């Protein structure tokens, strides 16, 4: 990849007492990509990106952002970053437009604020005080503040937490739009769907270690799990006969419901042919592709939402 490296992290370590929050993580982020961290709460996602933001001092390893050490680079680096923190607040009685004006004043340049408010769906809330905003509105305000300086590198920590599905899709479009304008985005999420649909590359992090890093497509492909065919029948089918079909790796039967696993996409045809040939009435037949959730399960041995 001939692309410019924006963030370079090598053997990053961060301990809180005895807890190894980040334990030797290395990766690079390239200009113009959406790079996502997924992992359960406490996996080390936030600590890792806060080290890159310069908000936390690493206990070991090297962190470079635009070739600079965030701990020593100071203001010149901060001016190029847009940061949305997972947990933050503003003064209770600060109004939305005042917050935007205030944060704009910290930077040498700022984007058009009314347009930003419009984009964030906060235009009619511009005179509302911070304390009067809903969780989702606060979240959108913090995303707006992260974008106020037209940053080259944007950090979004759990960007769609607390947002309704409509706002979530709007934020995805916004992030894609920023990427298309050449910005680099690093985000964390615990929504696998978000990582799969939004990120160009995904890093799976668990217990402070990087367990996988690739494009969502390749992560899923490399899992080699293949697809599965799910259907229900009224009369019982012999699972052994299903297993005997070419390309089928496994069959699960739960009452009327059967799940047939296989690496080849052709198994759908075989399953349907088998059922028709045996004159077995079936319903609700569908195919399912493995997703990032399955990758996560395979890599870490546990469900994401635990």
């Amino acid at each position: 990849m001939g692309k410019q490296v924006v963030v370079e992290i090598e053997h990053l370590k961060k301990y809180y007492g005895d807890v190894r929050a980040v334990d030797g993580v290395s990766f690079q982020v390239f200009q113009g990509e959406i790079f996502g961290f997924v992992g359960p709460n406490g996996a080390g996602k936030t600590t890792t990106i806060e080290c890159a933001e310069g908000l936390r001092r690493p206990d070991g390893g090297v962190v470079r952002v635009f070739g600079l050490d965030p701990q020593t680079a100071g203001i010149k680096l901060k001016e190029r970053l847009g940061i949305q923190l997972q947990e933050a607040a503003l003064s209770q009685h600060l109004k939305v437009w005042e917050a935007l004006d205030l944060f704009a004043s910290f930077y040498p340049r700022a984007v058009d604020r009314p347009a930003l408010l419009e984009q964030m769906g906060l235009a009619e809330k511009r005179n509302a005080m911070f304390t009067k905003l809903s969780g989702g509105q606060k979240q959108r305000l913090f995303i707006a503040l992260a974008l106020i300086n037209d940053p080259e590198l944007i950090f979004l920590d759990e960007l769609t937490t607390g947002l309704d599905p409509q706002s979530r899709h709007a934020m995805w479009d916004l992030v894609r739009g920023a990427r298309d304008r050449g910005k680099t985005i690093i985000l964390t999420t615990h929504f696998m769907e978000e990582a799969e649909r939004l990120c160009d590359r995904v890093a799976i992090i668990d217990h402070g270690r990087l367990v996988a890093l690739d494009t969502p497509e390749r992560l899923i492909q490399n899992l080699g799990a293949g697809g599965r065919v799910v259907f229900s029948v009224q009369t019982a089918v012999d699972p052994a006969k299903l297993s005997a079909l070419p390309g089928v790796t496994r069959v699960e039967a739960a009452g009327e419901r059967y799940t047939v696993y296989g690496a080849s996409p052709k198994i759908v045809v075989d399953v349907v042919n088998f059922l028709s040939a045996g004159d077995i009435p079936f319903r609700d037949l569908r195919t399912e592709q493995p997703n990032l959730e399955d990758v996560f399960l395979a890599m870490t041995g546990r469900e994401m939402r635990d």
Partner: protein
Amino acid sequence: MSMLRGLKTLAFVEAKLFLREFFGVFFNLAFPLLMLFIFGGIYGNTPSPFFGGQGSVDVMVPAYMAMLIGTSGLLTLTIIISTYREFGILRRYKATPLRPQTILIAELLVIVLMLILGVILLLACASLVFHLRFHGNALSVAGAFLLSSLSFFSLGFVLAGLLPSARSAQAVAMTIYFPMLFLSGATIPREALPLTIRSISQFLPMTHVVNLLRGLWIGDPWGKHLTEVVILAAVAAIGLVVAVKTFRWE
């Protein structure tokens, strides 16, 4: 220039926020006026032998100035810093190019501005309504005011730095502030306090602020108040050292 970038807007916004908060407006601006009108209204400002030939309001005004210093340094400063830290407001600022010093300067600027506004309101009302008398040197009083403010502001920083949460900082600040307010002579004049309380109150920094300001108000020379000056300067110096060591952003 970049040092000052954001300072003007931040200070302006913080001043607006200050005025939107009932607590701040009441204790920093309204409360001394309320006291002035109640007690000035009851006792007037006729010179009385009880106050060594001064009027009630002449004694009250420098004491209320001490109260304002205590409110700003001990209550307002402590509460603003500890809540901003606890609720992640300072953290959010840290993610911007804003320098930490700029944030502190802006907060201090606003608190000092409100303190000065409180003093101006107090002096204006006392002069216009109760014909306040002044026999001291304005520069000396201003100097004593500055020294007292330094010692109370550094105490505020110490409390904000040492106490873990906004709640505990608020609770401790109030626990120190309110008894001090009534025992130091800042509200009830020392002439009206029993001797035992007056000897206890020697251990309260605010007592020395009240005594220094009241003395300089009637034209005492500085030499007569060296004890107060030394104690307040020591509090300021020790407080500053502890504050620098304990101050935290998170």
